[in-house]
């Protein structure tokens, strides 16, 4: 198999997607990667729901969940820096809640609860999503009777996500190369045209995909 090792652990095939997407596409394989998707999703769901419902006073629960997640993170061989960066996504929300509750003479436990719960749940989702291919997640959803139309839509969205993002970036670059003014109004018009074109191309591609599906016998 021709070896095309990405330079950074998080590079994807499309030249542009690497900057826009925070998803880990590197090649590490680990114990966690090899676990069954259904198991990972099931455990993750239990952890998330229980963590959200548990009162913050149940320190034992939160501590053991933290340990389990750290252990899993270690076993998964995902780069720590990457994990940390993804967790930072939460910071504005947590900060907001902390600020609001700081002015309240209520119990401080509330903001601690929110912060801890959201971080733990986020870490759980990060670990599962980066060690499980999306198509496997869809297969699990299908087995729990999620409607086929929704599954097909999810699958097609995932498949063409990067294709469209690359198209959008290419169009934007092409436009920017021919933009000599810095007027904001012109800018917005240009960007809106790019987005409009993106919709048109998506529609036309959808028709071609339909033809390709029919050509191989889809009913």
């Amino acid at each position, binding site marked *: 198999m021709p070896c095309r090792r990405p330079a950074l652990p998080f590079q994807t095939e499309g030249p542009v997607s690497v900057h826009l997407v925070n998803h880990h596409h590197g090649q590490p394989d680990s114990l966690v990667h090899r676990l069954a998707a259904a198991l990972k999703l099931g455990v993750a769901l239990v952890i998330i729901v229980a963590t959200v419902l548990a009162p913050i006073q149940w320190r034992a629960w939160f501590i053991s969940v933290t340990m389990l997640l750290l252990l899993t993170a270690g076993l998964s061989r995902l780069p720590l820096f990457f994990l940390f960066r993804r967790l930072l996504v939460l910071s504005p929300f947590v900060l907001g809640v902390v600020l609001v509750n700081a002015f309240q003479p209520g119990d401080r436990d509330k903001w601690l609860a929110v912060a801890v719960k959201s971080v733990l749940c986020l870490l759980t989702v990060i670990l599962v999503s980066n060690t499980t291919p999306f198509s496997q997640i869809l297969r699990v959803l299908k087995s729990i009777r999620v409607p086929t139309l929704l599954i097909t839509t999810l699958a097609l*969205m995932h498949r063409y996500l990067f294709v469209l993002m690359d198209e959008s970036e290419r169009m934007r670059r092409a436009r920017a190369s021919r933009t000599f003014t810095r007027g904001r109004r012109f800018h917005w018009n240009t960007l809106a045209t790019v987005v409009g074109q993106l919709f048109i191309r998506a529609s036309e591609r959808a028709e071609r995909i339909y033809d390709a599906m029919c050509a191989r016998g889809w009913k």
Partner: protein
Amino acid sequence: MHIPDGFIDGKTAVTAAVISATGVGLALRQVRRELPPRKIPLLGLAAAFLFAAQMVNFPVAGGTSGHLVGGTLVAALLGPGAAVVVVTTVLIVQCFLFQDGGVTALGANIFNMAIVNSVAGYVIYRMVCRWLTGIRGQVTAIAFAAWCATVLAAICCAGQLAWSGTIPWAVAFPAMATVHMFIGVGEGLISALVFLAVYRARPDLISETASAGQPQRLGELVRYGLLVTLGIAIFVAPFACSWPDGLDSVADKFGFGHKMSPLLPAPAPDYLVPGIHWAVGATAVAGAAGSLIVFALALLMGRWLVPKPKDL
């Protein structure tokens, strides 16, 4: 506006999930029944489009930029049912793949951004379109509808946060509503510009996809409307009206006051920083005035963007 895990509590999450599941189920049924098979891949592609479009930076001032959310735009282009399915798909992928929004909060996020945003946006869009015809009317309609839908979704979000006790209503409502009144302007403007761009390049696409997605029966639209109203009644109304007070006193009289209180949140002005207690009323007034102003702006914008065709 994606709520992370831990910001809404169990009861809110479950209620929202039940309402959302019903709404998405309705939408799936409508789409399956009415969308021609040719358009089925369009749902997935529209979801991919929406995601890619949301990443485009519309520069505002000094480093900040606006982004399209797109629920109303998709509803205008594809119909409300398809829009609900499309935005739900985007939210699910964002939640699992990009951790934008929590898993337990998925129900709430879907209610706010897929159902309220798309359905309310669509209804307002069509109402305005009935009044102002032609492409100019459509542009005005979509701008105004997108603004309204954004603000409405934000209000529902505030309600959910308040009902969970994470942030009190008196803080959440003014904050979310006012911020989104400004964000909504961007959303309205961008939605209108994109709609116009699509119309200019492929007017046939607009009429083709829009008519394919229109609910064939009024009943469908009514069902969505009921769901939205139910959600608003649960998440927003208890705060917006003073009936919890009234209900509490009634409940006390009949002796089951304590049973009711955990479910009904009590607005508690004495907890707050002095001065904030009037923020709620002020926001409501600002909202009403704001919608009139925004409508006027949308009219002007429509006139500016779509020059009247010179009659031959």
